[in-house]
C-alpha cells in the first residue's frame, strides 16, 4: 500500500466520523423536524379528540338532563347533572375565607339657630356623645364591619368607627368587637367582647339604622347616645309561640353612665325581658322591660358652662319599651307604619366634685330623673317615609353642697354643676322625611324644634345621607 493511499485512508478514516457526524446532524435536524411535525399533528389530533370528548360528555350530560327532566330522575342524578355553578368572580384560594365586609358612609349638613357649644340638658350630666352633631357640612361617622363564622363553635363580628376628633385628627374607635358561641343549646344565646347592651329598644341598633338623624333625648341624657361596653351576655328564648326572651349582661363599666372600671366582674349589670308577637297578619309588636345597675367610679362629664363634674356613686336605670309595626298583609314594601316609644327612669345617688376655674366644690347628689319619647314613621309610598317624634326629660335632683373648695357660695357650685334644672323640663319636637332609592342608600331631611335650654328654642335642620357598601347584614325587628 502506497503511503499516499495510506494517508488517504487515514484521512478518510479520520474524516469518516466527521462525515458521518455531518450527515447525522443534517438527518437529525430532519428527524427532529419530522418529529416536531408529528408531535404537532398528534397534539392537534389530541386536541380534536379532547374537544370531541368534551362535546360527547356535554351531549351525555344534556341527554341525562333531558332524561331527568323528562322523567324526574332520582336525586343523585339530578344533583350530579347540575352541580352548583361557580359564583361569578369566585375568590382565589388565599382569600376565599374573607369575612363579610360592609362599610357605611354617613354624613350630614346641620344648621342650628342657637350656639351648639352652649347645648345642655338641664338637670343631666352629659357624656361626650350626648351633644349635637357638628354644625355645617360634616362627616358623621364611617363604619366598617367585618363578620364571619370563626369555626363550628364561634361567630365573630367587629365594627370600627372612624370619626373626626375635635383637634383635627381622626379617631378610630372599636364600636363593637364580639364573639357569639353558635352551638349553645336550648334557646340559649351568648355573647362576649365589646357590644351594645340589649337594654331598651333602640340601644342595640347602629346609628345608620335609626329612623331619625339624632338619638332621642332620653338616649342622649341617660346613655350618652348609646350604651356599649366590654362584657358578657347570656340570654334565653322560651320555647313558646309568644316570643319571650330573658337575658342579662355584665359589663366592665368603662363607659357612661359608668366611669372607670373598678371590679373584676364589672361595675355594670343589666337584666332584660322582651315579649313579642303578631296580631293578625298585618301587625307585630315587641315590648320590653330592662334594668341597668351601675356603680360609677370617677364618671367625668363636661358641663356647658366650662365646669367638669366627677361623679362617684350608684346609678340605677329602668327602661320600658314598646314597638308596634303595621304593614298591609305583612307586606312592608308598599306601605308600612312603625310606632316606637320608650320610658326611662333613673335613680342616682353619690357625690359630685365640681371643678371650674381652679375651684373644686363637693356636693351630695341624689337624683330622680325621667325621660320618654314616642315616634311614628310611615312609609306612604315605596322608598319614601315620613316621621314625627316627641321627646321629654325631667329631673328632680336633690343637691347639697358639702365643700365650697374655692367657689363663692353654694349656689355657684350648684349652677356650675349643671344638675339643677331650675324647674325646666327639656322637650323636643322632630319631623323627618327620608328617601331610600334602595335598601343600601338613604337621604333624610330633618327638623327639630329643640326646647332643651331654658327660655331658648333651637331650630335645628339637617340633611343627612347614609350609604352602605358591601355585605349588608339583616336588620332586627
Amino acid at each position, binding site marked *: 500500500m502506497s503511503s499516499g493511499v495510506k494517508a488517504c485512508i487515514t484521512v478518510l478514516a479520520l474524516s469518516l466520523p466527521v462525515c458521518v457526524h455531518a450527515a447525522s446532524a443534517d438527518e437529525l435536524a430532519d428527524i427532529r423536524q419530522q418529529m416536531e411535525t408529528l408531535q404537532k399533528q398528534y397534539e392537534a389530533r389530541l386536541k380534536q379528540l379532547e374537544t370531541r370528548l368534551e362535546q360527547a360528555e356535554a351531549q351525555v350530560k344534556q341527554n341525562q338532563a333531558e332524561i331527568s327532566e323528562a322523567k324526574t330522575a332520582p336525586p343523585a342524578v339530578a344533583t350530579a347533572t347540575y352541580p352548583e355553578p361557580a359564583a361569578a368572580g369566585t375568590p382565589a384560594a388565599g382569600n376565599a375565607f374573607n369575612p363579610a365586609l360592609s362599610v357605611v358612609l354617613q354624613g350630614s349638613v346641620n344648621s342650628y339657630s342657637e350656639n351648639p357649644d352652649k347645648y345642655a340638658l338641664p338637670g343631666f350630666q352629659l357624656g361626650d356623645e350626648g351633644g349635637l352633631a357638628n354644625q355645617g357640612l360634616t362627616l358623621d361617622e364611617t363604619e366598617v364591619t367585618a363578620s364571619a363564622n370563626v369555626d363550628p363553635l364561634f361567630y365573630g363580628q367587629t365594627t370600627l368607627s372612624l370619626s373626626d376628633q375635635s383637634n383635627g385628627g381622626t379617631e378610630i374607635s372599636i364600636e363593637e368587637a364580639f364573639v357569639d358561641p353558635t352551638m349553645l343549646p336550648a334557646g340559649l344565646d351568648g355573647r362576649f367582647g365589646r357590644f351594645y347592651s340589649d337594654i331598651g329598644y333602640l340601644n342595640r341598633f347602629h346609628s345608620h339604622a335609626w329612623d331619625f338623624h339624632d338619638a332621642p333625648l332620653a338616649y342622649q341624657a341617660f346613655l350618652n347616645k348609646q350604651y356599649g361596653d366590654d362584657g358578657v351576655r347570656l340570654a334565653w*328564648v322560651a320555647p313558646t309561640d309568644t316570643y319571650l326572651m330573658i337575658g342579662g349582661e355584665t359589663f366592665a363599666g368603662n363607659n357612661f353612665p359608668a366611669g372607670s372600671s373598678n371590679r373584676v366582674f364589672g361595675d355594670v349589670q343589666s337584666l332584660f325581658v322582651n315579649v313579642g308577637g303578631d296580631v293578625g297578619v298585618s301587625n*307585630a309588636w315587641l315590648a320590653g322591660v330592662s334594668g341597668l345597675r351601675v356603680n360609677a367610679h370617677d364618671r367625668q362629664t363636661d358641663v356647658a358652662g366650662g365646669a367638669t363634674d366627677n361623679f362617684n356613686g350608684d346609678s340605677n336605670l329602668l327602661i320600658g319599651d314598646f314597638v308596634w309595626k303595621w304593614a298591609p298583609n305583612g307586606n312592608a314594601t308598599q306601605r308600612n307604619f312603625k310606632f316606637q316609644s320608650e320610658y326611662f327612669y333613673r335613680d342616682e345617688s353619690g357625690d359630685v366634685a365640681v371643678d371650674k376655674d381652679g375651684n373644686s366644690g363637693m356636693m351630695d347628689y341624689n337624683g330622680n330623673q325621667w325621660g320618654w319619647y314616642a315616634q311614628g314613621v310611615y312609609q306612604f309610598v315605596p322608598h319614601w317615609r315620613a316621621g314625627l317624634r316627641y321627646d321629654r326629660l325631667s329631673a328632680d335632683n336633690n343637691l347639697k353642697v358639702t365643700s365650697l373648695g374655692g367657689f363663692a357660695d353654694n349656689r355657684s357650685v350648684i349652677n356650675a354643676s349643671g344638675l339643677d334644672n331650675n324647674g325646666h323640663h327639656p322637650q323636643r319636637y322632630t319631623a323627618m322625611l327620608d328617601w331610600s332609592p334602595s335598601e343600601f342608600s338613604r337621604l333624610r331631611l330633618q327638623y327639630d324644634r329643640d326646647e332643651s335650654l331654658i327660655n331658648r328654642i333651637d331650630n335645628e335642620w339637617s340633611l343627612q345621607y347614609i350609604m352602605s357598601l358591601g355585605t349588608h347584614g339583616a336588620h332586627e325587628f
Partner: protein
Amino acid sequence: MTRYLLSVLFGLLLLPLNAAGDLRVFSCEPEWGALVTELAGDHADVFTATTAQQDPHYIQARPSLIAQMRRADLVVCTGAELEIGWLPVLMARGGNPKVKPGTDGYFEASAFVPMLEVPQRLDRAEGDVHPKGNPHIQLDPRNIARIAPALSERLAKVDPANAGDYRKRLEDFNRRWQSALQRWDHEAAPLKGMPIVVHHKSWAYLNQWLGLQEIGTLEPKPGVPPSSSHLAELLETLKATPAKAVIRAPYQDPRASEWLSKQVPGLVMIEMPFTVGGNAQATDLFGLFDSSIALLKGAQP
C-alpha cells in the same frame, strides 16, 4: 302582684305544648311548606313564615318568627340569598343550633336545581342582583320534582323513625306529580312562544318551562320601582313587538301593570298566584300550576 306575674309567665310557658312527637318544620316560603306537607303529611307540624301576599325579599324579622325558629327541627328555605335580609337574624336570635346552615336541620332548595340568570357582573348599580342566580325557582314544576327526593331524604334523616313512611309518600307524590307534569305539558303546549311583560324578574323559571317569551319588565332594574320614563320606553318596545299579557305576583303593586294594560289594546293584566296561597285555586302545589296555566291560557285568544 308577683304571684300574678308568675302565673302569667307560667301560662306563657305552657302555651305551646302541641302534639308531641311531631316534626316541627319552619318553612320560609309557602311552596316549601306545601311540599313538606305533601312529603310528610301528619308527621310534620309545618309553620310557614311568609304568605303569597308578602315579598320574600323583604320580611321583618318579627318576634313571632324568632319564637318559631327557636323550636324548629327542620328549616326549609329557598336559599340563593333570597332570605338574606331576615333569616340570619332569626337564626342568630333563635338560639337553635339544630337548624343552623350546614346542619341537617337546614335545607336549601336552590342547592338542588340548575340556577338561571347567574349574573356575570356583580354590581349593585344593576339593581337588586342575586349573586347565585334568580331565586324564584318554585315556578318550574320540574324543579319541584328535583327538590322533592332531596327533601324527603332530609326528612328521613331528621326523623328516622318515620323514614319508611317518607319514602312511601315520596313515591306517591312522584307518581302524582309525574302525571300532572304530563298533563301540564299538554295543556300548556299552546303557550309556547307567548310574548309577555313581567313586573319583576321573578318568572325566569316559568318562562323556561313553558317557553314564554319575556318582552320586557316593568321594573327598569331588579328591585327598582317602575318609572314613567321606563314605562314609556316599554310602550315603544311593545309597539314593535306586541305582548299578550303583563303578569305580576300578588305582592307587587298593580298600578304599573294596570296602566300598561290600558295603554296597549289587547294586553291582558294577570295577577299570577306566584306561590301556594296566591289565589283561591292555588291551595297546594298542584293548584299553583293548574291556576298559572289556566290564567295564561285565558290571555291567549
